[in-house]
């Protein structure tokens, strides 16, 4: 079975600094894969290269067997890859429902269908009660939830999350982990770029570790965390148990 997402030898430079150096890994359908690494490891750059916000200097990105390297971000979304942002972005002047409808319109052209689909997503993500609240009036945790809902409304096959757990209380963290598990149950594959190790450990099937632009280790969370190279890379960073 070929992988849903294949990253092959992605390299990206920024004026002399090699942010991604020949990074390769793949993600199978239905998996939850986390990409971790200390600050400056190149996680955000890799994220950008996969989702179409950056163009790799070398290497390929394949989605569902199809080469999506260098395609525009909107095109990649239409092909089935959705993402969230590190600094959460929702449409402030719209209600929660309208926000999700905006995502739903991608595959449901009519207003009624989009509305129905959006309500379904709201229910699945636990936001149905807040559907008429303004996007700007939500807490950060709820905004992140909304962001996930908006992404889900585009009916993605792959959802990529960019450090979405940052700044959440333990309760909120637990809720979002539950949410992501539910998302996976709906058949969406997840790639999570994260710092919050608790989430990584609880959610991931596999973990990819980056350091200084290179992939240094890949494997099950339990193994990766014991790997000396990984511990070395994180020396000075505290593991949040």
């Amino acid at each position, binding site marked *: 079975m070929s992988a849903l997402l294949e990253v092959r030898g992605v390299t990206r430079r920024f004026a002399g600094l090699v942010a991604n150096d020949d990074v390769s890994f793949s993600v199978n359908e239905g998996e939850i894969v986390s990409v971790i690494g200390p600050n400056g490891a190149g996680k955000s750059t890799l994220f950008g290269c996969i*989702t*179409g*916000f950056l163009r790799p200097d070398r290497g390929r990105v394949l989605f569902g067997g199809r080469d999506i390297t260098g395609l*525009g*971000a*909107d*095109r990649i*979304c*239409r092909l089935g890859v*959705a*993402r*969230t*942002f590190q600094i*959460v*972005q*929702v*449409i*402030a*002047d*719209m209600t929660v429902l*309208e926000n999700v*409808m*905006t*995502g739903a*319109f*991608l595959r449901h*052209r009519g*207003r009624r269908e*989009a509305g129905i689909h959006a309500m379904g997503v709201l229910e699945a993500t636990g936001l149905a009660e807040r559907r008429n609240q303004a996007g*700007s*009036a*939500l*807490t*950060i945790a*709820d*905004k992140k939830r909304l962001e996930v809902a*908006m*992404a889900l409304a*585009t009916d993605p096959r792959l959802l990529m999350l960019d450090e979405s757990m940052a700044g959440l209380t333990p309760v909120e963290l637990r809720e979002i982990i539950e949410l992501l598990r539910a998302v996976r149950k709906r058949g969406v594959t997840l790639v999570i770029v994260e710092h919050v190790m608790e989430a990584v450990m609880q959610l991931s099937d596999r973990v990819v570790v980056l350091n200084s632009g290179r992939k240094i280790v890949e494997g099950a969370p339990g193994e990766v965390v014991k790997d000396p190279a990984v511990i070395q890379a994180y020396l000075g960073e505290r593991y949040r148990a």
Partner: protein
Amino acid sequence: MVRAAAAAAAVAAVLAFPALFGSPFPLHVAIMTLIYATLGVAWNIMGGYAGMFSFGTAAFFGIGAYTSTWLLTAHGVSPWLGLLAGGIVAALTAAAIGWPCSNLRGHYFAIASIAFAEIVRTHFNNWKLVGAAEGLMIPITPGGLRVFQWNQSKEGYYYVALVLLALALLACWAIARSRMGFYFRAIKESHELAMTLGISFVRWRLAAIMIAAFIAAASGTLYAQYVLYIDPESVLVLPISVQVVLVTMLGGAGSLPGPVIGAAVLVPLSEITRAQLGARGTGVDMILYGALITLISVYQPKGVHGFLAARLARRPAEPRAAAALEKPA
């Protein structure tokens, strides 16, 4: 029930206006109000909804006016066809300038729109084909609706202006509740967010600009047929564009009735002060304008509509705690 009755009364009043206030000056004010309301709706589509704040609406207003007028005077084309032609020319021009500008936001876009409009004005000011600085004159032609000209009274223009505004509002309403409208608002919020929802912001921004340009151009044709004389100073200058922005902002940018409210307040104000004081050429009406714009920006940037909406939204049971926990986005 009450709202339906009020709406019906308003519609009746608007339709009966010429019969009630038939003298030239009030009708003139009404016609200009309708024209600026329509221009405001056009601007609102691309600015209020899609976030492209243009200070160059006059360019499309003028292109519409000049296209239909030139077709009429040089080739005898009916002004109604000219209206369509003007709209198409304006839309295509908008696409041509809009495409390279599709990355520009905020101040950069605003200045680009000013630069573009100035280039257009300079060009028309020197273009012999359309009369350069002297402009074009439309010969007086009896025939009423057929020739898009009424010489005995202004009523015909009033009703045409009303229909044009109604159509523009209808278009805006349809857009706002459709996929296009949602996409516009997403683009206004953030290009990146729009892209991640599968929205090609280039394509949709173009759509917004082209629609706005078409409507503005149609207003231009109406204006030309109304005053029967156009020149760069009367249809292509920056003050027109600024007035369009102000009208929409005062009423409430991004809301459906905003431009209409704003026009209904500002245009009579401007016309009346100009009639009373402006005859001495001292621009007191513009002083008031300037002060008004500044005050609105500072104290009530969401305009009348925003003010009313905020009032109506005060629901005492709404939990404020959640909002208090929240950092400003």
